[in-house]
């Protein structure tokens, strides 16, 4: 089963999504995917992994870490499916990052690796954009890069964990304007899903709705205003969003406020 959070006629609903992407709202209303505004499918603490694919670590000229490199993102950075992400002006390089996201299903503290999958509620997809110009070499990943408004599209929905037979054998792909730019597989994760749940729960309580963005494989490239960026994780979903300039975004906000 696929679960979404959507806005329809100025109200927020929980919805289920069928295989043809038609929605059924919590009150029984049936809608098409284009009738609603897609919102992030989960709400909680957002963890993100740096350098969790060996190929990507090599691409950035880093040695693969021996302990997970985890950072936290603020709720301000999330947007839903079919929304926009702002590319700041006067930049050299902003890139997408296709990621499998683990959504916690029940409270987890001190969970053993062998029990960890019981605490996974489901999976979704995120695009963990990064503005490389704002990385200061050793003080990273900083919030100015990784917790910017609009720069973490997530969704479109959450797929129940039971519907994904093996989360460690899923192809990830990124398309920019329809062109395949990034491809990898979750089989190359350095720290896998049960390890990450167990690791994080060894020093903090994970709550239902918490999200673990598991990292991205190699294949990064720059994106520009106007680009349509789609990140896809096999068996989970395909998340689309469009890059806009700062000026276009400010104009959008003004129009929405009017």
């Amino acid at each position: 089963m696929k679960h979404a959070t959507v806005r329809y006629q100025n109200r927020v609903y929980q919805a289920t999504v069928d295989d043809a992407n038609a929605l059924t709202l919590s009150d029984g209303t049936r809608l098409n995917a284009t009738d609603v505004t897609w919102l992030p499918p989960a709400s909680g603490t957002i963890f993100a992994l740096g350098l969790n694919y060996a190929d990507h670590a090599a691409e950035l000229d880093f040695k693969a870490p021996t302990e997970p490199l985890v950072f936290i993102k603020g709720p301000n950075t999330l947007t839903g499916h079919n929304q926009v992400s702002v590319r700041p002006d006067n930049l050299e390089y902003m890139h997408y990052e296709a990621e499998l996201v683990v959504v916690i299903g029940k409270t987890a503290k001190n969970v053993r690796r062998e029990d960890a999958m019981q605490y996974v509620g489901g999976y979704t997809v995120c695009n963990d954009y990064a503005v490389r110009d704002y990385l200061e070499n050793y003080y990273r990943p900083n919030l100015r890069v990784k917790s910017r408004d609009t720069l973490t599209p997530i969704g479109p929905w959450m797929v129940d964990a039971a519907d994904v037979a093996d989360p460690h054998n899923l192809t990830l792909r990124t398309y920019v304007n329809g062109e395949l730019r990034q491809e990898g597989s979750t089989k190359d994760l350095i720290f896998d899903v049960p390890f990450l749940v167990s690791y994080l729960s060894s020093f903090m309580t994970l709550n239902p709705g918490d999200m673990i963005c598991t990292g991205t494989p190699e294949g990064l490239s720059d994106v520009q205003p106007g680009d349509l960026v789609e990140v896809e994780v096999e068996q989970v979903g395909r998340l689309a969003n469009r890059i806009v300039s700062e000026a276009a975004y400010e104009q959008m906000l003004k129009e929405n406020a009017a």
Partner: protein
Amino acid sequence: MKKARILQNGIIKTVAVDPSGTPAAEPGHYQWLPATEGTYIGVALNNRPLMNRLAPSLQEAPYKTPPKTPVYFFKPVNTHNAHQGVIEVPADGETAYAGAALGVVIGKQARKVMQADAMQYVAGYTVVNEVSLAETSYYRPAIKAKCRDTFCPVGPWVVSADSVDVTALTLKTFVNGELRQTGNTADLIHRVPALIEYISNFLTLEPGDLIITGTGLRDVALVAGDTVTVEIEQIGRLENTVVAEKGARA
């Protein structure tokens, strides 16, 4: 004017606090809650004595140069804790340290705010004990050190912004009644209006969000059995007891 969040009879309430520090609760038992609920954003390396001590090491590998822009981190919801709450330190004996800091509570949505206007977005101030294990690295997000359950007591209350000037307030940290550290908000490198400008430039601040303006040297170790109190003049005294973490995996 002081306002606190309390839990009484299963209901979360925001109530006024009288000058003696008593919240306007119904008769009977109540529990203090974190004085604000929202996103907690910490500012690292924002204290002059701390930077003076670290300055030589920040010229060396892997840093090679001090940070050009402020370094931020989050204290997620599992860390949020209240006045008179319990701080759980690792059962294996790894040392936790107190982190006295002035907390700035946001009053209205702040996006791309300039320093000159920043104070309009501040609802008030509170006391934060930004607890952490030893920080061995400032260039990687040390969530294992900083994001442990209970590691961010905030309170007891929020003092309204119009009733206090926070540019030079003394911070004191006591353990079991003994004064262990003194600091001053004048030691902040990036001050409150600047922080609001920098942060709101890329991250929209919402009402209730908290900026933890910066901790000093990590000199005050906390061990099970201690009572730790962080006091900021004109703001309040935040008191917590320290226990060994329970339920650690055998």
